[in-house]
């Protein structure tokens, strides 16, 4: 009996040896899990990376089952979703997992990005991790937007109609481009078919590839931590970081707790509030797409609303404000800087030219530019942030105040984007749009002023009880 067991053990080892000679299975396992050294002081905010991967897997798996029953055909799509909800055994569960998963994905990703900002995870040497992450965010938005059309509800239809028509404002090629995207003059069966192809094949492939690159880059430079200090600065006699622990088993078991916490909330929505008061599944989407009946308020789903608010905030009033501001900034730059006279005159001229451009262009065009710029800003973060320290724990007060105001503005924009505009709400959205961009434009300034706290040499753990 004992011999038999021993043989088994030997054959298992032999198998891994055979395997490792042909494919670096053990090497990859060690490098990325068992011997990947992570700082030991990860806190609550560090759950969202692994949770994002969990949600990605949930979306891929539920997506496969939905694809088995869904019909990407304008005449059949809506009924096929109801077929899934009624006739497919537990189809409703798979569908709610997917629709709730879409919102959960954005919740998790927004919190993951916020973590990066507060602990300086975007800073040198992790710029590539951050940039790939930003591309993931953009790809995720495209994935969500295309998926939103597939149930072929009335809001799906009109939402897609509005967003695709934004490309119309691009000079010269705009109208031809929108027609090319839709494959028709309006949103139609052709659009539905190609969005289905993008949603189930192209973008999932891109997302998985990007997530892989995100991890490759991360494991090359190592994880940041809530103190924003480098654990490789303090090594033990073996040359290993004193504050580092292997990712597996320490963080695999810790992340299991996070996974359970997430699942409780996620399942709470799926089983008790699947439409989440009309935020995750909108009322208008329970009526099939009707090209003749525009919903009273066309609003995107909640995760797009901060950017949608910025788009809508771009009115003539905002452009006039921008025009005056650029003149004032130009003059201020001329008066208060110490460049040579021709350059200072150049500042004023640039301000005046910018003002003329603002006053002579359409609000719609600038709305699209601002919305795109709002997303591009995230890509620039590693270079806009000039603070000598990474973590919010040691940052100066101006940064904390600026970040708090920015987060507030972001939430207000998100809220305003869910509702029909009124004059006062549009004004509020314009103020918040200015705050949004001011946060990024002024970041090199407010991150370099104020007094930062001294950095510790070792990471700080929660006090032992």
């Amino acid at each position, binding site marked *: 009996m004992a011999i038999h067991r021993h043989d088994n053990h030997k054959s298992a080892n032999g198998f891994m040896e055979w395997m490792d000679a042909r494919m670096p299975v053990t090497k990859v396992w060690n490098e990325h899990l068992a011997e990947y050294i992570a700082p030991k002081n990860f806190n609550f905010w560090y759950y969202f990376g692994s949770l994002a991967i969990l949600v990605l897997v949930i979306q891929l798996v539920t997506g496969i089952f939905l694809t088995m029953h869904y019909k990407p055909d304008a005449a059949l799509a809506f009924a096929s979703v109801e077929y899934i909800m009624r006739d497919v055994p537990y189809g*409703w569960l798979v569908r709610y997992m997917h629709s709730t998963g879409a919102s959960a994905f954005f919740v998790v990703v927004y919190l993951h990005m916020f973590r990066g900002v507060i602990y300086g995870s975007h800073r040198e040497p992790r710029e590539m991790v951050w940039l790939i992450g930003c591309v993931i965010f953009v790809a995720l938005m495209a994935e969500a937007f295309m998926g939103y059309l597939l149930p072929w509800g009335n809001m799906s239809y009109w939402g897609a109609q509005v967003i695709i028509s934004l490309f119309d404002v691009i000079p010269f090629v705009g109208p031809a481009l929108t027609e090319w995207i839709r494959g028709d003059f309006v949103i139609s069966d052709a659009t539905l078919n190609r969005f289905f192809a993008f949603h189930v094949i192209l973008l999932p492939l891109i997302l998985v590839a990007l997530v892989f690159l995100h991890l490759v880059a991360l494991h090359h430079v190592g994880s940041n931590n809530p103190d924003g200090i480098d654990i490789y600065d303090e090594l033990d006699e073996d040359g290993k970081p004193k504050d580092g622990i292997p990712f597996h088993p*320490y963080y695999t078991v*810790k992340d299991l707790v996070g996974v359970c916490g997430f699942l409780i909330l996620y399942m709470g929505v799926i*089983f008790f509030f699947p439409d989440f008061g*009309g*935020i995750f599944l909108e009322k208008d989407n329970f009526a099939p797409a009707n090209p003749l009946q525009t919903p009273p308020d066309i609003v995107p789903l909640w995760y797009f609303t901060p950017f949608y608010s910025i788009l809508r905030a771009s009115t003539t009033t905002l452009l006039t404000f921008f025009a005056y501001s650029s003149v004032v900034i130009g003059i201020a730059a001329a008066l208060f800087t110490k460049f040579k006279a021709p350059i200072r005159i150049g500042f004023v001229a640039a301000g005046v030219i910018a003002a003329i451009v603002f006053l002579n262009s359409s609000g719609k065009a600038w709305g699209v530019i601002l919305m795109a710029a709002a997303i591009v800003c995230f890509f620039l973060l590693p270079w806009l942030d000039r603070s000598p320290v990474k973590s919010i724990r040691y940052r100066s007060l101006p940064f*904390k105040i600026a*970040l708090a105001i920015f*987060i507030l503005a972001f939430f207000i924009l998100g809220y305003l984007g869910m509702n029909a505009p009124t004059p006062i709400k549009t004004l509020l959205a314009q103020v918040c749009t200015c705050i949004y961009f001011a946060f990024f434009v002024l970041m090199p300034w407010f991150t370099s002023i104020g007094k930062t706290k001294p950095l510790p040499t070792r990471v700080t753990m929660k006090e032992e009880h």
Partner: protein
Amino acid sequence: MKKITTLIVAFAASAIVSSSTFAAGGSDVALDKVYMNMSDKASLQNGAKLFVNYCLSCHSAEYARYNRVAEDLEIPLHRLKENLMFTTEKEGDLMKTTMPAEDAKEWFGVTPPDLTLVARVRKPDWIYTYLRAFYRDDSSPSGWNNSLFENVAMPHAMYELQGVQKLMGKVDKSEQGALDAHAAQGSDDYTIVGDAKFELVHPGKMTPAEFDTAMADLTSFLTYLGEPAQLKRKTIGVYSIAFVILLMMLCYLLKKEYWRDVH
């Protein structure tokens, strides 16, 4: 840091709460609250009976199947065939109307909408108020009008049950208190539906109270029809979440055990 986290959570929570109030249609339309009990099978069965008798002749419920309704509502198949199926012999069929869409369009000016998902598009309270708000109006093509959905093309399908109402006028919010007091005294010279005041000109087969109950049953059935899964979704949810809570406790203990040597 804790303060910022708390602040953000508070903002997120308030944003969700306020926007869901808005999403629920925080409009100024006065609606009557409907009391529904999704586990009351008798109420759902009565709603189903009213639905096939009074709604299905013009409206379809084309995403729902007869046998699924029978199964969920615990209606025996022979009872289903005798009492609920008028348009088809196959119990697995979708609940389609017999009225051709073109004819309907010609007769009413619009094709009557499918009702499978009406409770997910409109709120149950809206349906309950709408069904009780029909009144006689000789100026409209059908001879009927509705105080909640003005100039609706639909005639009063259930006037034989409710009787014929005459609109006495709209009720102001300031009058509401006095009217409620009046109603509490058991007076029956008028009824209030939404923000409209009606006089019952010809009584129907049902008293106003009976009709209200019947319409609550019908609204419950339509709510069920919008999402059949809701009958078992919450039960599954309770067990699933209870399981994950237990799992979380075990995972936490496991984590604690592994992390004992990390200081």
